[in-house]
C-alpha cells in the first residue's frame, strides 16, 4: 500500500467509524495530525507535514490470564517513515507504516506473582520530568518533541510481598532508540562538529541481538516510597559513527556515511519519594558504567517536586550528570538534555485539559517551551492544538532544534 493510499484510508476511517463503535475489550483511535513550521534547516525540510494514525487494541481475560494485542497503522508525509512495511521489533531506523506495540500475555504464577511474556511497554522511575530509571528505555525520537516509548520484547516477573514489590525483566532482543532523520531540522547535527554542507547517509546498522536484564525493588513505608534497581546489557541508545574515511564529495560538501553502534552498560540506581505537606518530593540517583570510549560513565541525579492545585499539577524537576561525557552530550540521546530544569504544569478543565512545559538547558542557556490545549468535542472526539518552541544557543540540545519551531493541530476519534 502506498503512503497516499494509506493516508486516504485513515482519513476515511476517521470520518466513517460509526458511533459508538464499542466491542468487548476492543478500543482504539484514529487521529489526523498536521504540523506547520516557521523555518527550515535545509531545502529538504517540508514547511508542513501530516501524520495519520490508526490504533486498535484488543484485551481479553481468559480465567486469570490476561491477553493483550494492539496494532498501529501510520501514514507520515515526511521521511520519518521508512519503506519497510512492518518492523516487528522496531529494530530499523525509520518508523514502519505497520507495527505491533502490544502482543503479550500475563500469567499469575501465584496470587502475588505474575509472569508477563511478549511485547509490552515498561514504565520505570518515579520522577516524571526526567528519570534515570526510565531514561534508558527505548524511545522513538522521530518526533523529537514527543516522549514516545517503544515497546520491548521481554519477559517480566513481578510480585509483591508485604510492603515490598519486585520486578525482574529480561529483554532478549535489543530494541534501539529511533532517531530523527539525521541532518533534518529534527536532528541538525550542528553540535556534533559536522562541517556545514555535509550530507549524511544513514546506514541501517543492525543492532545486536542481545538485550538487557534488570531488577527493581520498591517499598512503601507510610509517607515514604523507596526503590532500588540495577541493569546490565546493551544500551539501546545508539552511538553514531561518522565514517569520514568513507566520505565522498557531493554537490554541497562531503557525503558521509553514518553507522550506529551500541555499547554495553551496567547501571544501578536508587529512588526516594516522600509526601511533605502538600508536595510530593522525589529524588533519584544512578551510576552508569561503560567501558566505551565515546560513552564513558555517568552519575545522574534527578530531584523533583510535585504539587496539586485543584485539578492541576505543577511538577518541577532538576536533573544533571556529574560526569562530563567524552563526546558531545547531544549525541548521547538518553542524557542529551542534561543538565536541565523541567517545569510542567497541566490542568484538567470541564472542556478538556491543557499543559505547559518549559525545559531549560542549564549548560547553554537554551530551552524549549511546549504548550497544548485539548478540547473534548464529545466523549469520543477530541481536538488538540499546540506549539513547540525551542530557543536559545544552537550549541544546546534544545536551541539546535530552532528550525523545528512549529504549531500542530490534531483531531482524534476514539472508540
Amino acid at each position, binding site marked *: 500500500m502506498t503512503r497516499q493510499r494509506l493516508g486516504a484510508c485513515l482519513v476515511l476511517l476517521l470520518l466513517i467509524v460509526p458511533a459508538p463503535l464499542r466491542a468487548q475489550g476492543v478500543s*482504539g483511535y484514529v487521529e489526523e495530525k498536521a504540523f506547520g513550521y516557521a523555518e527550515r534547516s535545509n531545502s529538504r525540510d517540508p514547511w508542513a507535514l501530516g501524520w495519520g494514525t490508526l490504533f486498535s487494541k484488543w484485551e481479553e481475560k481468559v480465567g486469570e490470564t490476561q491477553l*493483550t494485542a494492539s496494532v498501529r497503522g501510520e501514514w507520515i508525509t515526511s521521511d520519518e517513515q521508512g519503506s519497510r512495511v512492518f518492523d516487528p521489533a522496531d529494530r530499523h531506523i525509520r518508523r514502519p507504516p505497520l507495527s505491533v506495540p502490544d502482543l503479550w500475555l500475563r500469567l499469575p504464577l501465584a496470587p502475588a506473582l505474575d509472569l508477563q511474556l511478549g511485547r509490552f511497554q515498561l514504565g520505570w522511575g518515579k520522577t516524571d520530568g526526567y528519570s534515570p530509571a526510565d531514561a534508558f528505555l527505548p524511545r522513538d525520537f522521530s518526533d523529537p518533541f514527543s516522549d514516545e516509548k517503544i515497546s520491548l520484547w521481554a519477559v517480566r516477573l513481578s510480585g509483591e510481598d508485604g510492603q515490598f514489590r519486585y520486578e525482574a525483566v529480561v529483554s532478549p532482543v535489543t530494541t534501539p532508540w529511533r532517531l530523527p532523520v539525521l541532518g533534518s531540522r529534527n536532528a541538525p547535527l550542528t553540535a556534533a562538529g559536522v562541517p556545514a554542507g555535509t550530507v549524511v547517509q544513514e546506514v541501517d546498522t543492525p543492532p545486536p541481538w542481545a538485550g538487557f536484564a534488570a531488577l527493581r525493588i520498591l517499598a512503601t513505608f507510610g509517607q515514604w516510597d523507596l526503590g532500588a534497581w540495577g541493569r546490565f546489557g546493551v544500551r539501546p541508545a545508539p552511538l553514531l559513527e561518522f565514517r569520514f574515511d568513507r566520505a565522498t564529495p557531493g554537490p554541497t560538501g562531503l557525503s558521509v556515511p553514518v553507522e550506529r553502534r551500541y555499547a554495553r552498560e551496567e547501571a544501578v540506581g536508587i529512588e526516594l519519594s516522600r509526601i511533605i505537606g502538600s508536595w510530593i518530593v522525589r529524588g533519584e540517583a544512578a551510576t552508569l558504567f561503560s567501558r566505551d570510549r565515546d560513552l564513558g560513565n555517568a552519575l545522574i541525579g534527578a530531584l523533583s517536586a510535585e504539587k496539586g492545585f485543584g485539578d492541576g499539577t505543577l511538577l518541577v524537576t532538576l536533573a544533571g550528570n556529574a560526569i562530563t561525557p567524552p563526546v558531545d552530550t547531544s549525541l548521547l540521546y538518553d542524557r542529551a538534555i542534561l543538565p536541565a530544569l523541567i517545569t510542567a504544569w497541566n490542568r484538567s478543565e470541564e472542556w478538556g485539559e491543557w499543559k505547559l512545559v518549559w525545559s531549560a538547558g542549564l549548560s547553554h542557556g537554551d530551552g524549549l517551551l511546549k504548550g497544548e490545549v485539548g478540547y473534548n468535542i464529545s466523549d469520543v472526539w477530541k481536538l488538540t492544538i499546540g506549539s513547540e518552541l525551542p530557543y536559545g544557543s544552537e550549541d544546546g540540545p534544545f536551541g539546535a532544534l530552532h528550525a523545528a519551531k512549529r504549531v500542530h493541530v490534531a483531531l482524534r476519534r476514539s472508540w
Partner: protein
Amino acid sequence: MILTAAFLSTLCAAVGWGADARALLKESENRHRTRSQQYAGELTVVNKDGKVRRKGWKSFREGYAGDARNLIRFTDPPEVKGVGFLSLARPGGQNPDQWLYLPSMKRERRIAAQDRDASFVGTDFNYEDMEEFDHEKYKVALQGEQSVDGHPCYVITAIPLEKGGKSVYEKKILFLRKDILYLLREDLYRKGDKEPTKRFILSDLQQIDGHWVARKMEMSDLKKGSRTTVLLKEIAFDRPVVANRFTLQNLNREGGD
C-alpha cells in the same frame, strides 16, 4: 463515599459530642455492614451548560468504614479506560493512602492528602469523596428531623476532627432515613462557606443479597452547577474477594480489575 451506598449510611458518630447521633450512626453501621461489595457504575457527568459526558467503572470494596480497602477501575470512555484508583484505610483515623494508576504512564501516582480536593477523573467527586467515612475523624450531633423525598430523616451534623487529617470540608450534614437508618442525603460545606458547596443524594433504594442499597447516587457541585450521577449495576455483597486485589501490584496490572 461513592463506593458503597450502604456505607454511606453507616457514618459513625464520634466520641463525646452528640451521643444520640453516634448511637444512631452506630446502629446504622450495624444494620448495613457488609464484608465486601462490588458493582459496575455508569456515570453521567453534566456540566453547567448541560454538556453530557459518560463514564464507566468497576468498583470493589473490602472491609468497612475505617478499615475499608477500595479499588476502582475505569472501563469507559477510551481516554480513561484502564485508569485505576486504590484507597487503603490507615489506622487511627488518618487520611487513607491513595494511588492513581495511569495506563499511559504504566505506573501509579501517589495522591498527596492536599490533592484530595482535585476532581476525581473529571467527575464531581473529589479524592476525599472517594474515601470511606471514618467515624473517628468526625464529631457528630443530632440537629433534628427533616423529610427527604417524603421519608422522615434524622439530621446529623458531622465536623472533621483535626486528628483525622486535613479535610476538604468544614462540615457535613447527613440525612438519615428514620425507618431503616439509611443515608439519603449529604450536604458538604467547604471551609468558610455558609451554604453547602456540594450535595450528595442517594435514591432508588432496593434490597440486594439482604442489604439495602441505593442504586442511584448523585453528586451535585452547587457552585459550579454541574452534577455526576452514578447508576449501580451488577451489585453484589459478601462475595469471596480475589486475593491481592487491593495491592499496588494489582493496581499496576494493565487490563486487570
